């Protein structure tokens, strides 16, 4: 099956105008990526890692120095029109827009650049304005919107053309908590609606990558360091998950040590002696159900339960030797 996005030894070097003005920067260094249709694929890396450069090349804004990049099977350096028909892009923190037009006029105008029928464009704009809580702003001039509202309008601009493949460059950058959540929820719903849709998302928010992405490529200094599902990436760290329970009315803890899949186990009673805190190092995730069954089988009550897993930041630190921020 044809990949939604494929890069082969993709390299991008930025050279200063004059040698005195700076050094040569290798923004991308032989990047190989294969993203399947229907995937929500994330590129996670710190600022300056090369995330945006990949998106610029894939969206035909920038030519690679060497290597190849294909979108829906079309060469981004040669088949510009075929690539552009199938894509759109949203950049976080973006406040672009024709300030003299209303929100609706702006969105309609960009839909026309993609050849959408006017009636269909307005229908989609209605749906998206409702979804992003901007319906009451549709007749207001863009210049009067707040920064966050402009960003939401730009997210709508990207999705209103219903692209096969959308590039989201830090889409929640600078948004407040609620707006960021709205965007994340929409992104997940949008890709689940149609198996032919593909999202390539760049972010330096680990939680966002973890929550949204089917697979993640970790990038630093223009190189892909690892590429896998969030779950498998976390396995790279070699750290086990931890399960912590607070249990009431527990007198006997002897059976817990023999539950399969437990690497280590400890317990402590609280000061009043009413609750027992149990902490399990899990070698196998399936041990969780056995632990819960054993606690309940002893007639005890679970007061609280918390499972802690290694984070993508742990993965990043292991791969790069420093944190993401």
């Amino acid at each position, binding site marked *: 099956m044809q990949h939604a996005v494929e890069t082969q030894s993709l390299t991008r070097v930025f050279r200063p105008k004059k040698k005195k003005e700076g050094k040569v920067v290798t923004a991308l260094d032989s990047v190989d990526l294969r993203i399947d249709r229907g995937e929500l694929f994330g590129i996670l890396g710190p600022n300056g890692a090369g995330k945006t450069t990949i998106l610029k090349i894939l969206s035909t804004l*920038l030519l690679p120095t060497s290597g190849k990049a294909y979108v829906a099977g079309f060469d981004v350096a040669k088949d510009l029109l075929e690539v552009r028909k199938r894509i759109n892009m949203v950049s976080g923190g973006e406040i672009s827009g024709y300030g*003299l037009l209303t929100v609706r006029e702006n969105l309609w105008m960009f839909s026309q650049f993609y050849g959408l029928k006017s009636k269909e464009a307005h229908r989609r704009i209605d749906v998206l304005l409702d979804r992003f809580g901007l319906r009451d702003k549709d007749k207001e001039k863009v210049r009067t919107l707040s920064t966050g509202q402009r960003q939401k309008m730009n997210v709508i601009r990207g999705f209103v053309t219903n692209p096969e493949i959308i590039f989201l460059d830090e889409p929640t950058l600078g948004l407040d908590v609620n707006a960021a959540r709205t965007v994340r929820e929409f992104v997940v719903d949008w890709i689940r609606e149609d198996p032919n849709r593909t999202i390539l998302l760049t972010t330096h928010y680990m939680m966002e990558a973890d929550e949204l992405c089917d697979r993640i490529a970790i990038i630093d200094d223009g190189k892909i360091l690892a590429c896998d599902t969030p779950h498998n990436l976390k396995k790279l760290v070699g750290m086990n998950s931890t399960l912590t329970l607070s249990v009431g009315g527990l007198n006997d803890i002897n059976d817990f040590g023999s539950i399969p899949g437990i690497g280590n186990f400890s317990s402590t009673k609280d000061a009043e002696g009413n609750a027992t805190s149990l902490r399990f190092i899990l070698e196998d995730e399936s041990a969780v159900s056995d632990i819960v069954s054993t606690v309940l089988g002893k007639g005890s009550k679970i007061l609280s339960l918390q499972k802690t897993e290694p984070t993508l930041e742990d993965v990043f630190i292991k791969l790069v030797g420093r944190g993401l921020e």
Partner: protein
Amino acid sequence: MAVINDLRLLKNSAWLGWQMEANWTDPFLFATYSIVKPIAGTLILVFMYLVITGGETANDFFSYMYVGNALYMFVAEVLFGVTWVIHDDREHYMTLKHVYMAPMNFYVYILGRSAIKIAITSFGVLVTLAFGVLALGVGINLGAVDWLLLAPSLVVGLLCICILGLAMGGVSFLTAKHSIGINEGLAGVFYVMSGVVFPITILPSWAQTISKFLPVTYWMEVVRRAVVPEAMDGLAASSGYDVTGMGDMSDLTLMVLLLVSAGVFFVMSIGVFRVADNIARKKGKVDWTTAY
């Protein structure tokens, strides 16, 4: 299908251009501005002429100069307007990258955005010419205007200016700081070398050679012959020599020269735009903003 899509794009881009040009103030103020601006601009030249000649405007040379100056508004405004579309989209609205990566004919988009500039400038030119006839005695006789010559020469000339603007737009992909200056420089070359306010025969011979490669030179001559034929005949008769340097050419010859030179500039402009576009993509300048 592609033609229908391009026509829709042309219409929608023109609408966007109209919003950008006219939506910044209320209609009355915009109308007032549209009338006062071209007249005020023209009066600068008129006063200079009056000072030099001692106050005589009802003569053939004044008509020659006045009409040329009015027509030059198309060159300056449209050339600048086309370049400004790219500059404005990139620097002010920050929409250029989204416009650029849309699956549309970028030339048609530019032409659509510029169409409204042509319309507004046409209004300005008409106002200027009307002011010239009513207040300064410019010799335009509507009954004598050669409409059959005027219409095709206007279409060819304006298309040529738009395409020249496209080349300048390509240059503005590469340099935000200097693009306006380069544009004004090119417009200045046309002003001096194309017989806008004085005939090219007063230029040194090397400059006259350059003039004869410029489509605007032929365009000025053809449109003047169409709009003020009596003044052009009178000018030739009173000076006693080929004052415009093109007096021995027929209207048809001038139209052919206009078409040929416009064709050459068309190919050159598309070439410049494509090269600039490619360099901009190589250097990553399509979506940069420079705050200029």
